[in-house]
């Protein structure tokens, strides 16, 4: 069952620019460009292709992720991104379907104004869908920022705080402690993998925080991302069958 875009979804989209395009590269097996606010990432998937002898795995595909920064050589920060994207993809791709082959995923940073990790993960997933590689599940990531003041906290998705109505930018600056987190989801099972990167916050807040606020806001955003996947699926990738009724 497919979900129609209702008014509610539109509202959220207005605050958060999300554009994507598939089939951007002619030589790659799958390619995508994803634009989330001012962050733009391009991803390409080559595979399953021949694998170098010493990297060959007899029971599954060898998966390699390359993250290319805008300029210069990749540094250790980029290695961290690569390892995170890589471990997600290893779980998501049905690698046992492609033994003795390699799948290369290249993510090129085009423009970065925050939330690079989330954007790269989403771009990689789109490219994998476009390449038609068998997947256990789809994944999506969202970065959000949480501002604290004593026990009250507000959670805002990346970059949205400029337009946030109830709090002015100056007020937000007063919230000294910030907490960044990136979530990524396994949509088929409605389970979540999560990854937080951030500064401190009180452990006692963790329960209510995770339950009430973060998940709700992030599920919504992930939902938007996947409704976009859906649109592209109709146009270009007829073979991938995606079930979208999980949020109901």
């Amino acid at each position: 069952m497919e979900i129609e875009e209702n008014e509610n979804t539109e509202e959220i989209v207005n605050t958060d620019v999300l554009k994507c395009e598939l089939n951007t590269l002619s030589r790659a097996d799958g390619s995508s460009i994803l634009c989330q606010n001012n962050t733009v990432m391009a991803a390409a998937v080559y595979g399953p292709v021949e694998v170098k002898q010493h990297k060959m795995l007899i029971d599954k595909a060898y998966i390699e992720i390359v993250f290319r920064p805008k300029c210069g050589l990749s540094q250790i920060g980029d290695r961290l991104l690569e390892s995170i994207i890589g471990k997600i993809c290893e779980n998501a791709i049905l690698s046992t379907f492609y033994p003795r082959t390699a799948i290369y995923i290249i993510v090129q940073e085009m423009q970065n104004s925050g939330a690079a990790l989330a954007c790269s993960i989403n771009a990689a997933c789109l490219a994998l869908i476009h390449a038609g590689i068998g997947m256990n599940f789809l994944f999506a990531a969202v970065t959000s920022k949480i501002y604290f003041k004593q026990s009250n906290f507000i959670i805002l998705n990346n970059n949205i705080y400029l337009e946030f109505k109830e709090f002015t930018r100056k007020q937000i600056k007063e919230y000294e402690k910030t907490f960044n987190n990136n979530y990524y989801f396994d949509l088929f099972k409605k389970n979540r993998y999560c990854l937080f990167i951030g500064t401190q916050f009180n452990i006692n807040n963790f329960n209510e925080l995770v339950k009430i606020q973060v998940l709700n806001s992030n599920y919504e955003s992930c939902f938007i991302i996947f409704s976009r996947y859906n649109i592209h699926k109709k146009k270009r990738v007829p073979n991938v069958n995606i079930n979208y009724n999980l949020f109901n």
Partner: protein
Amino acid sequence: MDHYKSVHPLKYYQDYLIHDLRPDGRSISKFRNIAMNVDSITTANGSAVVRVGNTCVVCGIKAELGPPRTEEPENGFLLINVDLPSLCSSQFRPGPPSDKAQVLTAFVNNIALQCGIIELKSLCIQADKLVWTLYCDIICINYDGAVADACFTSLIGALLSVSLPKVEYNNETNVISVNEETKISLNVLCKPIATSFAIFNEKTILVDPCEEEELLSSGMFCIVISDNELCSIHKPGGNVLEEEQIKKCISKAKERTVLIYELIQATTFKQKLL
């Protein structure tokens, strides 16, 4: 038994785990012992050796004077580097740093920066002219899993043991005078401690995994806690975890952090008495 282990390592482990036991005799939720020694390298400004089971990590801190960056004239530098040499495990080949080492370096640096382990402004001697640069080199001697735990513990231990000479900078003559007799110690603002977990399968989470367990599990994750505050849950990949499981792990990590704080306090206190 050895043949069984090498032919079917996963099955071998599963047979043990059914009985809530691991091949090394620990239960699933039991941590290994931690030992720590502070200031054992006399030529460094600060150092610490940490052992978690068989894992052994040395952290040495070297302080250098230098000019600050023009963008941040009052900030000193805290540069952390984690080295996993080929000496420590057969996983690593000689040559440039492995991916694992680079990822760990980026991770430790991120946490240190975001938590603000030390105030970078406190490393300033004269704004725009002279600041301290602390090179923290963490070297793994023996790799037997849970290296992140050992890295953070040794980093904190080493930072607490740092003693810097008093330096004065004359603005008019640009002369630097170093007073070796008065020693200044660093003000460590927060002490992030990592606790590693290995996700063996959806139901089993192994606490404080050894190297074999790390390699056999579907994924690793790491919880960093500092003074009752959660700094980070780093979980790239691996099986899906329920919220309840994560919460259990957080409370385990919390208990262990308290123990490590006691250990750090006891060792640094003992060192000061000597």
